[in-house]
């Protein structure tokens, strides 16, 4: 069998998905699991079921305890919108939206609302603070956003900030709506496209400098690690980053495997890190894209399918979760992706003093073309509403 890790990933995901609907007793699962492991020594088919049950057991055991005591909370938190942090481990969701800064918050501990469970659990937020009172200690504006706002008009600045750091909170709702409806929403989350672009750029420039390819791979993964760390290991970036790391590892160790297996391995690693990532819409979209591209490569389809397949793969998910199918994405991506690929490295340069001011008009022009394309493509191909 050519794709063991892909199969195992899919059945593990099935198990994790089942926990969304039903909860089982872990000891019952453990007994079945031991039974299945013994069976799979006889016949390896049973490994598929083993991993499915393992997925249920794993998410069951990682399930945050719902019955923590109802308690009062008081403390000084670093707040970003609805999210409050004490440290990397201690994260809380806030019932109030606050401006970024340091706050002293008093409130009551509660469980996160179930309709936001997928988004919050996949990011490690299990507890909510029902804010009763808060005092502002100090506001904190991101220096990068400040710099962007100096260089560009509001809408362009917030688009670039979203594209570079995956933080879309500052965007005007009207522009956000247009960008999403035209199927360009992926530009606003640090995802495979960004990671691929950055990796490709650094690899090419290191090659041009005459650095050994192996060293180049290591250096570019170090750079990407720094970047994903800087944007706070956002799930969307983490997915592409782990996939890239696995590819680098495979190249360095000289392992030859199908890209479908790589996707499976990346998915397994992410679900091992936090099984609830599966409940996040972004994870589903990402893996639909990854799998469709890997499949197109595996089947040696013509390059045009590499462009069409990921879009078709995301349609069912968009239809289920957001009730629309962005037909405009065929058109908008065709023009927007090349322009965006060009704009992204330049956008990074805007943080360089003096040079930033020089290239600002160019970047602004490119971003405005992207806005124009998305509006035009919606006009030409309105999205299917379900």
């Amino acid at each position: 069998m050519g794709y063991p890790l892909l199969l195992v990933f899919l059945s593990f995901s099935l198990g994790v998905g089942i926990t969304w609907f039903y909860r089982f007793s872990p000891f019952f699962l453990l007994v079945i699991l031991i039974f299945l492991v013994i069976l799979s020594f006889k016949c390896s088919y049973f490994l598929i079921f083993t991993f499915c049950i393992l997925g249920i057991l794993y998410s069951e055991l990682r399930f945050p305890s719902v019955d923590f005591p109802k308690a009062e909370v008081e403390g000084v938190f670093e707040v970003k919108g609805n999210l409050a942090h004490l440290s990397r481990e201690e994260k809380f969701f806030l019932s109030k939206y606050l401006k970024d800064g340091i706050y002293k918050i008093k409130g009551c501990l509660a469980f996160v609302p179930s309709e936001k469970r997928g988004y919050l659990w996949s990011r490690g937020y299990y507890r909510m603070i029902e804010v009763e009172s808060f005092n502002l200690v100090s506001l904190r504006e991101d220096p990068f956003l400040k710099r962007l706002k100096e260089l560009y008009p509001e809408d362009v600045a917030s688009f670039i900030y979203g594209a570079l750091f995956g933080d879309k909170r500052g965007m005007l709702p009207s522009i956000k709506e247009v960008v999403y409806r035209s199927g360009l929403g992926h530009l606003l989350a640090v995802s495979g496209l960004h990671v691929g672009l950055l990796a490709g750029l650094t690899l090419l420039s290191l090659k041009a400098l005459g650095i050994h390819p192996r060293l180049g791979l290591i250096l570019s993964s170090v750079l990407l690690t720094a970047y994903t760390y800087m944007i706070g290991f956002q799930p969307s970036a983490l997915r592409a980053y782990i996939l890239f790391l696995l590819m680098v590892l495979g190249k360095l160790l000289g392992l030859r495997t199908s890209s479908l297996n790589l996707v499976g391995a990346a998915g397994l690693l992410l679900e091992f890190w936090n099984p609830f990532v599966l409940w996040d819409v972004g994870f589903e979209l990402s893996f639909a894209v990854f799998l469709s591209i890997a499949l197109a490569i595996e089947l040696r389809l013509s390059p045009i399918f590499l462009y069409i397949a990921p879009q078709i793969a995301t349609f069912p998910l968009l239809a289920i979760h957001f009730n629309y199918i962005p037909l405009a994405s065929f058109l908008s991506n065709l023009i927007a992706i090349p322009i965006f690929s060009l704009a992204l490295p330049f956008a990074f340069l805007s943080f360089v003093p003096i040079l930033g001011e020089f290239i600002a008009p160019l970047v602004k022009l490119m971003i405005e073309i992207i806005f124009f394309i998305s509006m035009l493509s919606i006009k030409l191909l309105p999205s299917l509403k379900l």
Partner: protein
Amino acid sequence: MFSDKQRSGLIWIVVFIIVAAFGFHLYDRLSPPPSGVIVKSEDEKPSLKEIYVYVHGAVKNPGVYKVYKGSRVFEVIELAGGLSPSADVRSINLARVVEDGENISVPTIEGTKVQTPSVGEEAQAGRREKLINVNKASVEELEKLPGIGKTIAQRIVNYREKNGPFKSPSDLLKVKGIGEKKLEKIKGLITF
């Protein structure tokens, strides 16, 4: 379906994930609550201490009842089945906070009427008026007792706030500054 090599590799992954899952589970359950936050659990609040009171008189079901500290007389009467029709609500303060071991007697209308005080009883009632309840009196009232100054009065108040009401005269000996002699002097003037 899987080759032998793949199968043994995958089984190792299964074992690893099971061990890790139980490890994570234990770690989550055993890790202490957030360190930088003051978390006050509701069941630690002192107001939920249970106390016992005795209700009798004009209530439907007289007896000993368990209530939470801070409960009031009307709540205790509610527990005892409510007031009987003959109860005299004017001569009892329904809003008073009850104390542990208290004896609540709900008077009846007939009872109050019949007990028209005779001269002797009136005199006794007058004397009773003068008796100072050490469990309720303020510092100023306690100061009126012979041999009790402001400091000791304050100590009495502090003691009953800390340890609960006094139940017998000998409890007063535990207050610093009150010895056998002083207790002898005030014994007749106080009530509990």
